[in-house]
């Protein structure tokens, strides 16, 4: 399949209703950090962009939201073309310019503080990171607490960024500034908003 076909195919079959379903899953996930929200396969982007991450991009991104692609995604012309064609979002020149960042290789990703953090007066002007993960259960356990969590919740995404727990603690300390994370797994997603604290982490 050539790049043109790949970039035109694979969008939402029912744009209005699919976007609503994906948004509600994200809203529920960010309102209840650590909960796993199931999502049917609604988008078929070219690899290595995943169906879930692609659906999140389709639901939230448009020409008002510069998107940053990590090097693994940038290397695929078909991914760039697909995101551009289906969302209209311009590519951000640097992580700090991005409203959204799609990260196919979280392990090697740039430091969290390299993305837009928002300002003290406009903390909403920050990057939302969409991390592609293999699942939400096979990695080191993250015990979570904070708004949206009654007592504690648990999530265990594999292949997270290096020194993630330490980086996340610093992200917490920047509140109300800071980044928010959407973890996009096959068939499901979960969120870590900037308010979520990671209590402990198993080895």
């Amino acid at each position, binding site marked *: 399949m050539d790049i043109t076909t790949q970039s035109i195919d694979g969008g939402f079959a029912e744009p209005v209703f699919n976007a609503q379903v994906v948004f*509600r899953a994200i809203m529920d996930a960010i309102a209840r950090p650590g909960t796993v929200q199931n999502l049917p396969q609604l988008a078929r982007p070219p690899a290595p962009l995943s169906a879930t991450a692609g659906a999140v991009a389709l639901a939230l*991104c448009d020409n*008002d*939201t510069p998107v940053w692609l990590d090097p693994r995604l940038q290397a695929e012309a078909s991914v760039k073309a697909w995101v551009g064609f289906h969302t209209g979002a311009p590519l951000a020149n640097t992580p700090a310019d991005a409203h959204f960042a799609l990260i196919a290789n979280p392990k090697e990703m740039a430091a969290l503080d390299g993305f837009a953090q928002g300002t003290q007066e406009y903390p909403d002007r920050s990057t939302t990171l969409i991390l592609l993960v293999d699942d939400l259960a096979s990695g080191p356990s993250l015990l979570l607490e904070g*708004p949206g969590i*009654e007592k504690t919740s648990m999530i265990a995404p594999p292949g997270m960024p290096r020194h993630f727990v330490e980086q996340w603690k610093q992200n917490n300390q920047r509140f109300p500034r800071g980044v928010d994370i959407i973890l996009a797994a096959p068939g499901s997603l979960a969120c870590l908003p900037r308010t979520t604290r990671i209590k402990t982490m198993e080895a």
Partner: protein
Amino acid sequence: MNAQSTDIATYNFAYLDEQTKRMIRRAILKGIAIPGYQVPFASREMPMPYGWGTGGVQVTASIIGPDDVLKVIDQGADDTTNAVSIRAFFKKVAKVDVTTETARATIIQTRHRIPEQPLTASQVLVFQVPIPEPLRFLEPRETETRKMHALEEYGLMHVKLYEDIAKHGRIATTYAYPVKVEGRYVMDPSPTPKFDNPKMHRSPALQLFGAGREKRIYAVPPFTDVVSLDFEDHPFEVQTFDQPCALCGAENVYLDEVILDDHGGHMFVCSDTDHCEKRQADGQHGHLAPETHSASGKMEPVE
């Protein structure tokens, strides 16, 4: 998708265009991530005047899906003009199921009350907000209030409340009583009676706030601390009523005074009409309950 939902799509499901919904959805997610912080958004013209809950309507329109069940209340009642119009609007533009029953609703849009029945984790409460800025009456300039929030400079707010105490012997504010969210942002809980403030504290339901004219969206995630501002020597207290609801006998609920005649006759009844009707249907009666009331006599609001 079935044929019916395809029909809806052809005339703009939930009224707003998709780009507007995306913009509002992004604002909602930021609001949830920064509890109590007012996220600016580009409010759209709605087919109803400001003051009719255009902010709440835009939030509801951006989150609602075909499977949702919507309840709309105005001052606790499902059958006022404002509530009826908004419910009819969504029935028309989103073809969603509507209800007056708090327990059945997945989305509850409200002006000035929180239902008496405790909300659940599967519900979203959407508030219509006229003035989202709790510091506005202290400082009219947006640039200044934004700075005060940025610096967590809330001393003036405490001074104002303390002036109340000096003047009235208590904090006189009974509506839109300011709260602090998760120990950080001072937030206007919308013009709900302060009676409802404790219901916001660690509620299992997600709470979203939309101010149309002022173009702000903010949020309180579930299980989030919402504390009414007060002083050690003058702790926050909710309104209390010295009599139960005249119709259903409920205590510890918010009551409205209803004038019965022009000779000063009046009674106090539940402001939450669904709660009151449910209790009467369950056989609970206040001292002025109509004797003929039957369990099946629940009035449906006119759409």
